[in-house]
């Protein structure tokens, strides 16, 4: 479980996110949603510590990450896996070495053991026989999968995904979403996904945090998001043609 308390961050005096609090549950896919520029990525970066918030604290299972000392920070970091928007694979390493990288850095495993683990993870995301390919030789969807494999290779307790399906076709998007959902349940991980894709929201949104202009406006699940009664949220949810069809239906 990850808990955030009163997180605020401003850049050059301009507030980007303000006083956001919330809880992200273990074994669930938690979503942060909102339209472009509302500070979703900034919030996620505050949570993983890539950006230091001006105010507020982040707790990883009651351990205060924001105020942690060096040892505790690196202990928590070992339990984090993150999938970046573009995959963020290391250009100079092939697929196998990309996935193995966290094991090289964070563990003292035997090389054979590492390779087994890498192959297991690649298989888990549905990739085989690509071990020796370079990132430039594989497609965007495959990069995302390799990114997921790298994120889960060290058995993380916490998984973060920034826009896992941006730039992918609808079919591949659903596959990636399902993969994230399955992995979360299978390994009982606390997963946080940043997205503005309503398909993902309806598909895997077990717990949803809606950001609007840098503030948290609503919190709930995908079953009650369509009747929140909030006009800002409705504008976001029903911006999509398919969803508009749902709106008229009696509840």
């Amino acid at each position, binding site marked *: 479980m990850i808990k955030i308390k009163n997180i605020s961050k401003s850049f050059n005096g301009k507030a980007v996110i303000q006083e956001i609090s919330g809880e992200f549950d273990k074994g669930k896919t938690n979503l942060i949603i909102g339209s472009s520029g509302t500070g979703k990525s900034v919030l996620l*970066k505050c949570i*993983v*510590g*890539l950006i230091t918030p001006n105010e507020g604290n982040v707790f990883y299972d009651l351990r205060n990450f924001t105020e942690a000392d*060096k040892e505790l*920070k*690196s202990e928590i*970091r*070992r339990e*984090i896996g*993150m999938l*970046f*928007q*573009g995959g*963020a*694979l*290391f*250009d100079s390493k092939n697929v196998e070495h990309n996935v193995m*990288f*966290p094991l090289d*850095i*964070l563990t003292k495993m035997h090389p054979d053991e590492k390779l087994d683990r890498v192959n297991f993870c690649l298989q888990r995301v549905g990739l085989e026989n690509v071990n020796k390919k370079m990132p430039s030789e594989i497609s965007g969807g495959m990069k995302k999968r390799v990114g997921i494999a790298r994120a889960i290779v060290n058995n993380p307790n916490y998984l973060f995904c920034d826009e896992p399906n941006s730039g992918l076709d609808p079919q591949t998007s659903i596959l990636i979403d399902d993969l994230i959902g399955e992995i979360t349940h299978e390994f009982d991980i606390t997963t946080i996904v940043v997205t503005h894709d309503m398909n993902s929201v309806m598909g895997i949104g077990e717990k949803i945090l809606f950001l609007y202009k840098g503030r948290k406006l609503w919190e709930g699940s995908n079953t009650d998001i369509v009747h929140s009664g909030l006009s800002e949220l409705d504008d976001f949810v029903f911006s999509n043609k398919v969803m508009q069809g749902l709106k008229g239906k009696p509840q």
Partner: protein
Amino acid sequence: MKGFGQYMIFLGSLVVRRESFKTYYRLVMEESVLIGVKSIGLVALVATFIGAVTTVQTAYNLVSPLIPRYMIANVVREMTVLELAPTIMAIIYAGKVGSSMAGGLGTMRITEQIDALEVMGINSASYLVLPKIVASLLMYPLLVIVAGACALFGGYLVATISGMVTPTDYAYGLRFYFDSYAITFALIKSFVFAFLISSISSFKGYFTQGGALEVGIATTAAVTASIIAVLLSDYLLAQLLYVR
């Protein structure tokens, strides 16, 4: 001035929270091979031509019968070993290696590869940049030595083939009044230049913000800033170290 302060902080961040020695050793070796292999051909080619051109120019201008022909080789030695080899090569090094350092780091920044390292708890600046600087300190002086040798050889080739200077005179001129301090001086310069080019280029690349366009801008800025720093420090070092 703000940029200079950031640069200093950046240099400081390279030496804190490092990885194991083994990791760095491997990275330094990889970088060295990359830098050395990438630059040696161009360095040898350019140096040979510089040596040849310097020889021809000197021969044209030293036509007085009072000046012995071996002085041509002597002038070529003085110019190439001390100035042309370390300094001109630095400009080539900035264009070739510095730009690729800045471009590579800039791309890693905008594609979030640097963030990915940070999330894993790695000091990305130190992990990515320190090996580049150390590899430059190892390889650049070697390249300068190669450049110096190639320049003298280029001069020898044109001098003897065209018959401007006999091989014996050329060799005599090279050794005439030779002060080995010139070599020491050239090597001190090359260490300083190597450090400046690699650290400035890395600094510019590492702090890229935005997209592909900004990576291009950062790369150009890296080369420009490196060359200015090299020329400034060349002047300062000449003032400081040129004692005869």
